[in-house]
């Protein structure tokens, strides 16, 4: 889930307006694109890249490490199925509002595959200086610069703000991992935290959480054994109680989800939880020399 220079990316939906706009930005940031998919335009060239009829067709002809899905919600499931069938290792799903039944079906197929999904509803992943995948300002030097802070965020806009604050404070980023705002995502906060723990370039972690679900609580269990400093901001402290699920929904979440629950879980394992986004950069900038990022 950390992009490395040279990894090749297949853009499913490359000929669409957003697919085209962001493919150009990805290329400008150094990302290596292998081609795109559009069943109606197979055999054509777009942005100087080959267009294939499917991901399965694409991998017969070019090497693809990562697929990125720029496909509207109603057709996104089949696009992900195609990428799984093609055996592509990492599938970044940007689409928002994919119906839950389709997301459940995607997860069922992922279980029997070697593919990992990032998202749905992620803004993507960025490795400053190497490239990015998704809909992040990955080519904007005011936002991203190479460095040693690993950033995990559900939200693209808030994640962008945090990276911008870090860059302004003189702290570059080793990786930005956008995990997505959907309730059933393929890569969790904990998965991303483990990846940043293993990543040699990452010296400290900025963990941006949100109310709802239990991912921050689960990440806290892993954070307990980490040596790298972790600082967290959790959005939603002042949000009015949102739409509640039915009674039965409440018992499956088993108590997690509230701001207080997440803050308590993280603080109990030594994670510093701050009250405003910029405090996060300030905290990391003021770490003692032996912990400095």
């Amino acid at each position: 889930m950390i992009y490395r220079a040279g990894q090749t990316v297949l853009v499913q939906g490359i000929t669409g307006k957003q697919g085209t706009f962001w493919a150009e930005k990805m290329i400008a940031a150094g990302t290596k694109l292998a081609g795109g998919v559009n069943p109606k335009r197979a055999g054509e060239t777009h942005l100087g890249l080959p267009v294939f009829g499917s991901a399965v067709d694409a991998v017969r002809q070019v090497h693809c490490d990562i697929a990125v899905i720029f496909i509207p919600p109603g057709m996104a499931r089949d696009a992900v199925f195609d990428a799984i069938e093609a055996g592509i290792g990492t599938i970044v799903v940007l689409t928002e509002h994919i119906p839950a039944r389709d997301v459940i079906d995607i997860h069922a197929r992922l279980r029997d595959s070697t593919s990992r999904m990032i998202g749905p509803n992620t803004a993507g992943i960025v490795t400053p200086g190497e490239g990015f995948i998704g809909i992040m300002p990955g080519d904007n030097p005011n936002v991203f610069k190479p460095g040693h802070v690993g950033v995990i965020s559900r939200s693209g806009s808030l994640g962008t703000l945090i990276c911008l604050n870090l860059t302004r404070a003189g702290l570059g980023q080793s990786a930005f991992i956008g995990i997505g705002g959907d309730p059933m995502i393929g890569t969790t906060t904990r998965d991303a935290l483990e990846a940043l723990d293993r990543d040699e370039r990452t010296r400290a972690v900025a963990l941006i959480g949100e109310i709802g679900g239990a991912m921050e609580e689960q990440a806290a269990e892993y954070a307990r054994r980490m040596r790298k400093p972790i600082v967290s901001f959790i959005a939603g402290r002042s949000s009015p109680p949102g739409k509640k699920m039915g009674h039965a929904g409440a018992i499956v979440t088993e108590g997690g989800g509230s701001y207080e629950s997440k803050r308590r879980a993280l603080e109990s394992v030594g994670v510093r939880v701050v009250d405003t986004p910029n405090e996060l950069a300030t905290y990391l900038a003021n770490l003692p020399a032996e912990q400095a990022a």
Partner: protein
Amino acid sequence: MDFEEYAAKENVLAPVGIPIPRGRVCTTPQEAAAIVQECGPSVLKAQVPVGKRGKAGGIKLANDAAAAAIAAQQILALEIGGYNVERLLVERRAPIARELYAAVLTDFAARRPLVLFSTEGGMDIEEIAAERPDAIRRALVDPRAGFDVAQANALLDGLDLGAAAQQVADILVRLYRAYRECEAELVEINPLAVLTDGSVVALDCKFTLDDSAAARQAVLAAAAAQPKMTALERRGAEHGLKFIQLDGNVGLLANGAGLTMTTMDVIDHFGGRPANFLEIGGEAYTKAEVALDLVLSNPGVKSLVVNFCGAFARTDVMADGVVRAWESLKPTLPAFFSIHGTGAAEAVALVRERLGIECYDLMEDAVKAAVEAAT
């Protein structure tokens, strides 16, 4: 999207063949009386998409037409959970031997459907979970295999359901089918009653449609309950904007759910009170003009924060919408801007040139100034 009981029974349970009591929905005491005349002793139930209807006086029994008219009149005068009762479901009453619980819902953590069953029906599932957690049976479903009678029997194994066991298993299979076909977030039957004549009937039903499936489930979605909204919230919804009106003094406009929640949190942190939640992230970023109109129409607003950080959303497009709305509405309240990310250089210049407002570098500083201006 939540459904009232009658709509859930008609549109979700009936199509898959789950037995429901004989009855009809109505809106007047006269109609209620006529239904009781026809069906015999009945139960009259307020149709609102919230729980605890019984405790609020929204469920009454009537044995004849005259009693039905009186009960209906009383129920129709109620407000339950903020909803005025406008409809009643009148259903024939039958003697109950036993009350069970059945539900299928999306288990978000497991990323699979979950079937729940309990022999302790009639009370809330949270109460069952708290008092007798062992009384709830659970089965996670692999959607590729589905949920068949053998799995239903395995879930019910060892429970003393007697002659009803086969019917209950059959209903669970049908309920899973309803969950899949109707794209439920939750479909719950509580109680699922075993009647003294041995038949099994769904006495109540709660159904929540997955919001993201509403477009392709258009016929079903049309039967959903109207959500409770203020006039401003309804105006937002008509424009495809999720606007939540709050009782605060600082209005805010931000892009993306994460940044919007954060802006509210920072307003709160500096001692202000957010006046709204309004998400213009994703494709909605082109709707800044109508969005600002909504924020400024909220009567409690004393100052405004505009906090944009463009990733997907282009801040130049959003700022253009804000500037146009500002020029047509000509508001007099103080406004504080912080704009970063995609398109920020153009956006900051636009706000300076057209509105004469200098953007703050840190959102914290913009929010702090807005809170001070509001108090």
